[in-house]
């Protein structure tokens, strides 16, 4: 008796706690006929990507609500800010999407599309929204390669927010000190090393900054090992086979060895948890000669208006050059110069209660009108749309350079779910070389890890 009574009491309490806990869950959706939408980005007013956050809050939301009102719909939109490392943003987003939460419209990095799609965190737009997703008029303006970023296994999962490209930046005043030209354009890796040697002789603390190691995460892959691999004629994955300890990989790691083993780079900066930001700061302070980066560096780092390492004289002091192949004609597709591109995607949360309206908001943020408006406050970037780019980029020499000179010769990462794990293995290989391991050994270790990641040696071409 007693036992039964007690267990009954216990069950009652457990059930009550459960109810109380359930009541703590988030609730969304509005009362009445109001449609409430949320839009999230890794951007926050006064912090990371501040301009984007302010643009959404001050222009997109009022304009969109107004346009919906004109159609007789009462729509309220809220911006959900974040201002964290990309890795943390990815984790937060994954957990949100896993548990059926998150904003209605979300931004993701293009390279997450595969793993998010496989996990069921994002769904093909046409399934969620209907045929209007595929018939969106913007698609005609978006180049095939850029559309590819938003496509997984033949289905479109998102709209591309833009694309980018990588170049070699250099500091003109520092170059002048070392007797190097202001219109520098190296034609081979050796010419980069030669410039590095001259900068070193002139007392520049960090002659060359090419990201290495695991601390910088994907920045090491995109602004380091992948452009070098492409420059040596290699790709991380080709025709369904992954590249193992191949000659191009050994060449790329060999350049790391020459830079970091030869005193042309600062190995410590590569190990520092805040190394990438510190390298930006040091470039702005005139302590770095050459730095490989994406156009984000120009737009978001040394931007005289709102960069995180502002350079008031950016337009006069910061030079840029194409990334050369190891030797002319030895890059991928027989190119003289190479680059890598990525970009963000914006999509509709599969858990959205109002997918159609969410898609309208999504498409609105990528309308010519919105893209042009966003560029007005100085935050010009390469948009996904060729019709808008022509007009927008004319005022910005670097972005024009990216869209006209870099994008035609660029390469994209393989849009597959295991890529991020492969990328970490590549970062570890660069880290080993900077730490003194030989390129051959690091490449062999990479191949061993790769076998574990991609399901055996059968999927690797070496």
């Amino acid at each position, binding site marked *: 008796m*007693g036992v039964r*009574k007690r267990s009954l*009491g216990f069950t009652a309490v457990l059930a009550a706690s*459960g109810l109380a806990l359930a009541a703590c869950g988030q609730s969304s959706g509005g009362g009445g006929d109001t449609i409430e939408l949320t839009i999230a980005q890794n951007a926050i007013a006064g912090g990371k990507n501040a301009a984007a956050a302010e643009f959404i809050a001050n222009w997109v939301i009022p304009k969109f609500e107004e346009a919906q009102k004109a159609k007789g719909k009462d729509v309220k939109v809220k911006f959900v800010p974040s201002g964290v490392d990309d890795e943390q943003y990815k984790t937060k987003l*994954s957990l949100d999407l896993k548990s059926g939460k998150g904003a209605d419209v979300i931004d993701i990095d293009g390279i997450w599309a595969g793993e998010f799609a496989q996990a069921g965190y994002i769904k093909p737009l046409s399934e969620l929204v209907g045929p209007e997703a595929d018939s969106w008029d913007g698609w005609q303006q978006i180049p095939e390669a850029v559309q590819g970023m938003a496509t997984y296994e033949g289905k479109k999962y998102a709209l591309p927010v833009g694309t980018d490209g990588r170049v070699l930046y250099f500091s003109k005043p520092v170059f002048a000190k070392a007797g190097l030209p202001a219109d520098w354009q190296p034609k081979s890796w050796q010419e980069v090393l030669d410039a590095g040697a001259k900068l070193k002789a002139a007392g520049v603390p960090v002659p060359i900054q090419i990201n290495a190691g695991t*601390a910088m995460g994907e920045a090491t892959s995109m602004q380091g090992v992948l452009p070098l691999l492409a420059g040596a004629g290699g790709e991380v994955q080709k025709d369904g086979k992954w590249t193992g300890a191949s000659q191009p990989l050994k060449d790329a790691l060999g350049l790391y060895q020459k830079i970091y083993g030869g005193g042309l780079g600062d190995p*410590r900066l590569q190990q*520092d948890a805040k190394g990438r930001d510190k390298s930006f700061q040091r470039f702005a302070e005139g302590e770095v000669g050459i730095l490989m980066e994406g156009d984000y560096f120009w737009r978001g780092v040394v931007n005289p208006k709102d960069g995180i390492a502002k350079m008031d004289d950016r337009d006069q002091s910061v030079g840029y050059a194409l990334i050369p192949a190891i030797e002319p004609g030895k890059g991928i597709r027989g190119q003289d110069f190479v680059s890598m591109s990525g970009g963000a995607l914006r999509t509709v949360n599969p858990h959205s209660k109002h997918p159609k309206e969410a898609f309208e908001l999504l498409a609105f943020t990528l309308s010519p009108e919105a893209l042009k408006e966003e560029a007005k406050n100085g935050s010009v970037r390469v948009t996904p749309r060729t019709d808008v780019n022509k007009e927008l980029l004319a005022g910005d020499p670097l972005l024009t350079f990216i869209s006209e000179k870099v994008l035609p010769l660029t390469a994209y990462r393989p849009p597959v*779910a295991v890529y991020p794990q492969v990328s970490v293995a590549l970062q570890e290989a660069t880290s080993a070389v900077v730490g003194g391991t030989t390129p051959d050994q690091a490449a062999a270790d990479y191949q061993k890890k790769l076998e574990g990641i991609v399901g055996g040696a059968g999927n690797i071409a070496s």
Partner: protein
Amino acid sequence: MAQATSLPDTTEEQPARRYSEDAAGLGRLRAGAFTAPALALIAVFLVFPALWVLYLGITNYRLTGIAAADPKVVGIDNFLTALANPRFWNSTWLTVEFVAGSAVIGQAVLGFTIAWVLRDRRGPLRRIVEGIVILAWILPSAVVAFLWVALLDPRDGTLNAVLGLTDFAWLLDHPMLSIIVFNIWRGTAFSMMLYAAALGNVPPSHLESARLAGASNWQQLRDVVFPHIRGHVLTNLLLISLWTFNDFSPFMLTAGGPDGKSEVLAVHVYNEAVRNGSLGYGAAISTIILLINLVVAVFYLRLLRSKR
């Protein structure tokens, strides 16, 4: 590890009445009702998550990709992977170093020393020292970590400026030393307060007789003070060892870097589970950590119970 204790039966304090089955049943029900909320909380926030981690440890669950949508049970694969992973062993040894250096040697010895030196003092010096030590302890660890990152910065850090060093990169060249010093600074207060209280229990007459018998300071400590505070010492060592073992704050200083040189187990789990998305593997390592914790706890408790 948590033991459920039932409340003392208060029925006996009731006005005298005949003890009956019914009353006993009611008493039990009442006791059950009082303890149930606590038990429910323990179940929801401790037991269930722990069981969940045990389960995750035998799956290939990941944060994203196929294994997020459709995780498979893989048995002891994750454990075998961990045991074959040099990074896991590296983390294990670093954790031993971290616990031995910052908790057992650092916090306990320093805490005792401060308590011993201040035991008979009154006045401003004692208040200042205690204030500094306790302030370090009550500040949130995230705040303290940011403070230390700024302190240890090789170029603009206060510490290098004070010591006259230029470009001595604490966190990059001596990451373990940095997190050990940080943890000693942060955690000494607990040991100090515990020993201060314990030393108050040592009868002054015993110390007095020892002094009269010509015992040196060290002999007084060894033969008079320590036997009195043995239980406190072991309890203190157990608690700070377990806290340090599971401490995640080194992440805020070094994130386990450079290249895993300060990746203690708690940080290793985070890096694997959260940054690389291998949740199943991370859960397996968490299970291993739990086992190690149990061994450490049992070891100390045995010591505590022996020769009582």
